[in-house]
């Protein structure tokens, strides 16, 4: 996972190899790259997402997670000025998200949709040339060369896009998104449908972009991807369920537990654990394996050790269980399912 340290403000110097930012006019000083307050979108009676609020700093890699239909793509389209929100407000690169500002915002961002959307009869260079002109980038040939180098596709510039594999098409789409040297890069499930090797290539590219200071808004339902690439993640299921760095989310949900393993099952675990003030509850996972809910793990662990030794138990281990981002995600989404069934 990328740390915040070493990140530059804005996309200056960008991923395409040291270009100056083409995003002039967007605010980078003091303003958030994205600032969203109570944003919502309805299609008739159907709620795509509602009451979503967050801020993303310049140079941050931000992951947006959620199940299918959670509203991730609709949020990207809304912030990308393709869809009008029905409630709330937002700024994108410091520019208020209102219809009159659509063209101005689109000059400072780029979006890589889930489907690459390439012109299959045109070559890679022709596809990129078309978009270089649509973004009106200066010195388009140089910019295309740098974008192709960034995605390691220089040797395929003259290949028709229809002849490329799905992974290579994703890379071309990423090169296309890099052309304007955007302040904010929206990546909508960039590895959907890719094999592990192709997905790893795209991960490496995104990690490189993150290190070079590009603000990245990454939607995905691949949790390993988010955990590896993102400084912070948000979990969306129509409403925002939680937001924070992956480590912090894990701590928030799971850190207050201790896993205890003993050589043999305790004769009366209730007697042992109830006597420890730091333990708020406990349950048996399997024979000789217990999970304790504690108020402060650092204080509880020595007390638990002493109590077990006093009870004559042979202690094999006392540890804080490791939880992945996937555990956080499943915990929150399962809560939503249970709430909807109740």
């Amino acid at each position, binding site marked *: 996972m990328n740390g915040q340290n070493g990140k530059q403000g804005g996309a200056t110097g960008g991923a395409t190899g040291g270009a100056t930012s083409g995003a002039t006019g967007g605010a980078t000083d003091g303003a958030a790259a994205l600032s969203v307050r109570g944003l919502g979108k309805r299609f008739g009676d159907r709620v795509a997402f509602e009451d979503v609020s967050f801020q993303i700093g310049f140079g941050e890699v931000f992951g947006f997670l959620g199940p299918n239909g959670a509203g991730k793509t609709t949020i990207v389209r809304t912030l990308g000025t393709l869809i009008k929100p029905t409630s709330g407000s937002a700024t994108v690169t410091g520019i208020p998200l209102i219809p009159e500002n659509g063209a101005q915002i689109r000059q400072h*961002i780029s979006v890589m*949709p889930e489907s690459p959307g390439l012109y*299959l009869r045109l070559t890679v260079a022709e596809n990129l040339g078309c978009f270089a002109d649509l973004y*009106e980038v200066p010195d388009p040939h140089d910019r295309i060369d740098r974008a192709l180098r960034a995605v390691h596709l220089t040797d395929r510039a003259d290949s028709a896009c229809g002849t490329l594999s799905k992974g290579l098409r994703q890379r071309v789409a990423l090169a296309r998104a890099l052309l304007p040297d955007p302040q904010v890069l929206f990546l909508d499930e960039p590895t959907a449908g890719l094999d592990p090797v192709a997905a790893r290539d795209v991960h490496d590219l995104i990690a490189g972009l993150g290190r070079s200071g590009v603000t990245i808004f990454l939607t995905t339902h691949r949790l390993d991807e988010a955990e590896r690439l993102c400084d912070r993640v948000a979990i969306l299921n129509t409403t925002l369920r939680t937001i924070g760095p992956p480590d912090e989310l894990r701590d928030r949900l799971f850190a207050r537990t201790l896993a205890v393993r003993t050589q043999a099952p305790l004769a009366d675990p209730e007697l042992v654990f109830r006597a420890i003030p730091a333990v708020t509850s406990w349950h048996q996972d399997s024979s000789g394996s217990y999970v304790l809910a504690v108020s402060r793990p650092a204080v509880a662990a020595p007390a638990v050790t002493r109590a077990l030794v006093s009870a004559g138990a042979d202690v094999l281990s006392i540890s804080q269980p490791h939880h992945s981002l996937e555990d956080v995600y499943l915990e929150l989404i399962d809560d939503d399912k249970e709430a909807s069934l109740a």
Partner: protein
Amino acid sequence: MIISMSVSARRVRAIFRKEVREYRRNGNIAFGMAIMPFLFLIQPLVQVFALPSSASGAIRHEDSLLYLLAIPAIVPGLVAAYAVVAERDQGTLEPVLTTPVSREEFLVGKALASLVPSVLIAYAVYALFLACVRLFANPAVASALLRWPEILAQVFFTPLIAAWSIWIGLAISARSKDIRVAQQLGVLACLPTVAVTSLVAFNVIGPSFGLALAAAALLVILDVAGWRVVSAMFNRERLITGSR
């Protein structure tokens, strides 16, 4: 209706160039654009070649060649009806709409990409027709048929009618969800223009210089209005989500 009038020539050129490249590499589109005008030639040529010199007197008072104005009324409209809905269907529309390109620039690029090749084809077909008549028809019939006012009318009205047909086609394309439906509606939408050109060609409406001027002025107004109306109809959200 708010239409931004600042249009970037570079963005328009980008859309135009992309479209033309696709036409060149998609044999079906190029064939479709060329075949119909040539089919239009067969019947009048057979008829003209069969005419004896005695028919030249009657022909001199007819304007049947204006029937060829049906070519620019039909062909560019069918190409334009495909232009937006096909991009949407192929998933190429969303990346384009996330760029700073305005709807006016996008539509002008699309319109020019339909207009230029179809007008060139219409002129080529008309030139071929004139050459065939001059070379192979009875000389008296040829001299009765080939009159400058009609040739000039063909030259001037071809782009005007084509542009009108294109805006109708683009309007259909911007509102359709299905390529087949768009093309069927495109054919239907061409019929009123074809009917008018046919009425003139068969002398139901007597052509005159004044009528030509009025028709040209009306078409210029309709073409400008068409651009504005289609631009106003062009809705990014609707095109991307399919919402009403």
